[in-house]
């Protein structure tokens, strides 16, 4: 069990970490654009994003499975029942969280701050960097929420990963399996490891969030 546990824990961390990273790479620019630009259907897009923050993982799992299934659009990639498929599903789950919280965090800044930065000669990238810096408490909250949503998710991981021992078995799917078998002791240990992992990652992020000069 102990070597399995290490393997399962590391895979959980790798899949969730990769999914969080990709969702940040995708979500941060989109959220920034939504916060700083003004266009007619902006509110509609924001509503869609906010709805996306509550996407049921099993529904995401279903659609990603349909895409990756042998006869699906992306079936040729052969990703079904691999950690890659789990990362894709979890990116779909986490990205709306990053987009929504980034837009909300930047939206809370004084709108004149952007003008002030530009008026001091900041380029578009310099302006964006400083706005992110000013909204860092919210942005780190977005990272925590994104990581939290994927590390704790079980439905999609089960559907597109398949819970294959040594390949796609992660902490959450293992807990489901062990509980189903009536191995409550194992399930509890896995649950505690999952909680400890979430606590450690969020602890680091909270430390990063709270250090430095406060506004």
């Amino acid at each position, binding site marked *: 069990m102990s070597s399995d546990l290490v393997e399962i824990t590391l895979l959980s961390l790798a899949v969730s970490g990769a999914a969080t990273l990709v969702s940040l790479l995708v979500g941060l620019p989109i959220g920034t654009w939504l916060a700083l630009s003004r266009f007619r259907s902006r509110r509609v897009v924001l509503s869609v994003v906010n709805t996306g923050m509550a996407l049921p993982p099993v529904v995401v799992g279903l659609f990603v499975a349909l895409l990756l299934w042998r006869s699906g659009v992306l079936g040729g990639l052969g990703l079904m029942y691999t950690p890659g498929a789990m990362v894709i599903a979890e990116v779909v789950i986490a990205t709306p969280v990053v987009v929504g919280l980034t837009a909300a965090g930047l939206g809370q800044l004084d709108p*004149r701050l952007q003008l*002030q*930065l530009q*008026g*001091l*000669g900041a380029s578009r990238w310099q302006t964006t960097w400083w706005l992110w810096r000013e909204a860092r408490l919210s942005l780190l909250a977005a990272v925590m929420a994104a990581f939290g949503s994927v590390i704790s998710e079980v439905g999609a991981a089960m559907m597109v990963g398949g819970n294959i021992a040594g390949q796609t078995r992660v902490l959450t799917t293992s807990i489901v399996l062990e509980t189903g078998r009536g191995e409550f002791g194992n399930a509890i240990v896995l649950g505690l490891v999952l909680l400890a992992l979430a606590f450690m990652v969020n602890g680091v992020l909270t430390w990063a969030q709270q250090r430095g*000069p406060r506004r």
Partner: protein
Amino acid sequence: MTGTEPMTGTEPVTGTEPVTGTEPVTGTPPLSATAPPFLEVRDLVVDRADRRILTVDTLTIRAGETLAIVGPNGAGKSTLLLALAGLLRPTRGSILVEGVPLLPGRELAYRRRIGLVLPAPLLLSTSVYGNVAAGLRFRGVPPAEIRRRVELWLDRLSIAHLRDRPASQLSSGEAQRASLARALVLEPQLLLLDEPFVSLDAATRAQLLDDFERIGVGVPMTRILVTHHLHEAIRLGDRLAVLLDGRIRQVDVPERVQAAPIDEEVAAVMGTAERVRGRVVASADGLVVVDTGAGSGVDVEERAQRMLARARGEDVAGRDASGDGGGPPAGA
């Protein structure tokens, strides 16, 4: 003045000095009157949500001058300033910078020639030093040069002792000094100031105004100041532009705008709109006696039997209907 009895006497009203809309006023021309234009605005129009909020047919800001833009809230002052800063793309029209049109997509190079101070300090959550250095860092100025200039301007604005303090711990006066230092350290060709003293209490504002005036001496910089404080505009501006309902109604040296406002609305902005309706009852040696019913006012234009007197409070003397004389009339 409380009486309603018409003034019929021919005795002169004492202490009056007539002011007309046409009489030339000897204002001191700005030093930069002959300088080449730094900014030229032509047919500028800004619409927002299908509503026209700014129309400027023509406006020239000469190199080295301070143009103060005055007007009531909502007149379009800040919109004009943002357009002049290249931060708001106008619906149409052009802005020429030293004769070269400011083209869409080329604003960054222009913005690196200007400094901008907004009504709130809007400091970044870093140290005072970090804030003042920000604009120089955006421009890629070498660190040694940044240090030299930041320390110079922190000193000039009397905030050198706050160098390492987080911006969040500053008082409003200190924060606004840091905000000014952040713009001035750029030693910009054009400094744009939008109500830079508005968030301060009266004492702090007076002190900062003094310092700002002192610092400006000998610094070759064109300045545009937006304010709704008339005394600030008159004190700092070489010329005044009066903006009303999104249109520039008058641009001239402060003395001339004050003495000869182009219409009643400009007069109201300039505080010269103590208007008293009345009837001319006597006229002699260019002095006109007006019966206002409630008091007496003076105007040299005797266009009709009924007229509108316009005069600054200090130029008007009235006589109480009881005949005591002297003192400005009530309501004037």
